[in-house]
């Protein structure tokens, strides 16, 4: 219950930060702080949590915007899935903040590209494949910078008493992560 409350608070916080701070400041580079949060949480907490968090955050962001509902839900869910699966690699090799931030930045740029391509296919707004490809590098670099701030915060939050996953050793043993 506490984990759900924390997840809701975290998602709302990053959505509000995205809308009122990150979005206006980084315009026209489509940097997404919520997507980055989903990826970082998935890297540390596993694909199960990544999928759930990605879908719910993406759907909320979709409904709060005027683009087709489900696009960000689908893409961020995929980002959570991939992030959770690759996260095992990161924890096994003992990546530090910079390593995790770099991994999250690459995934974030790929997620942004996926969202932009889907929007271009659906003919939403001014999204185009060319613009999506052109903006991959700026999005990745900005995501890397944001990741350096976000990764320690997420790590500290997930280690906090009451939020911590019940069986963190399961990741290390490679038995798969079970969300409780």
């Amino acid at each position: 219950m506490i984990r759900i409350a924390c997840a809701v608070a975290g998602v709302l916080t990053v959505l509000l930060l995205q809308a009122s701070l990150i979005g206006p400041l980084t315009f026209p580079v489509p940097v997404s702080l919520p997507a980055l949060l989903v990826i970082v949480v998935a890297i540390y907490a596993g694909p199960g949590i990544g999928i759930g968090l990605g879908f719910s955050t993406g759907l909320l962001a979709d409904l709060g915007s005027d683009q087709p509902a489900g696009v960000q839900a689908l893409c961020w869910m995929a980002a959570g899935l991939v992030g959770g699966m690759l996260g095992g690699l990161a924890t096994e090799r003992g990546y530090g903040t910079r390593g995790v931030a770099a991994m999250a930045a690459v995934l974030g740029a790929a997620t942004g590209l996926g969202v932009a391509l889907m929007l271009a296919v659906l003919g939403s707004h001014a999204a185009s494949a060319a613009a999506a490809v052109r903006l991959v590098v700026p999005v990745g670099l900005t995501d890397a910078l944001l990741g350096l701030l976000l990764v320690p915060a997420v790590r500290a939050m997930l280690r906090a008493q009451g939020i911590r996953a019940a069986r963190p050793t399961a990741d290390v043993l490679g038995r798969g992560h079970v969300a409780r």
Partner: protein
Amino acid sequence: MRRLSRRQQIGAAVLTAVALLFISLDFAGGSLRGSRGGATGALGSLYRGTDGVLGPARRFLQGIPDVGSNRTEIAKLQAENTQLRRQVAAGATDTATARRLKSLQLQADSAGWTVMPARVVATGPGAGFQWTVTVDVGSREAIVLGQTVTDGFGLTGRVVAVYPTTSVVLLAADPTFGVGARDTRTGALLLASGAGSQGLSAALLNGKANSGSSVTSDVGSSVRVGDHLSTGPAGQTTFVGGLEIGVVTAVTMSTDGSVRVALRPSAAQTGLNLLGIVLKANRSTPRPPIGTGSGADR
């Protein structure tokens, strides 16, 4: 590399299907309009609240790249603005004064007068009752009682009091003011007097239209609307001759045959700033008057 459990795989597949369903529903029509409106509204109010806190920080961050150039630009524009304001304020006064001085000069040149420029420093003590102004020249500048005052366009008044450094000018609009006038078209003689805020009025010297006088036997031909009146024949009035008094705006004849003429003064009677006092003779004065010697040059 982590792998998905069986349950997670099912969950992922279900959520993917739901997402695709949402996309197709939203793409096909407005099925999600209600939920979209609710989410947008709820997030919108949260955005507004957040913006109250984060807005200043965001604007600060957004302004950082422009700080240097903006500050220079603002300082430059402020200096420019102050300069322009000063120019406008000074320019308006200077232009009016220069125009007035020029017209005084022209009038002095063409009539062969010597004109003493005088700045109005005060209006009459009884505002509304007595049409007088005080000017900044007096007996030290050889001003004497009864001298004619002009504003460069026409008759303004005459000097009624002289002090060492100031003089009082009775304006033509004052009800006690009277001046002999001549119709420049017909030569008819009239007596013009002040009518307060109405300007000036005038009466034919012979009074009645049917008095048999050669000048006034035909009122229509002696005075008409649009005629110009100037100060009377030289030597027969205390005013300098040939100075325009005003333009006739109405001619009325009362039942007893007396004729009244309404005049629009040629010289402004309010808002006076720079006047010229016509000196009869050249004198040695502390302030060199306009037009000295210019009559002899031509």
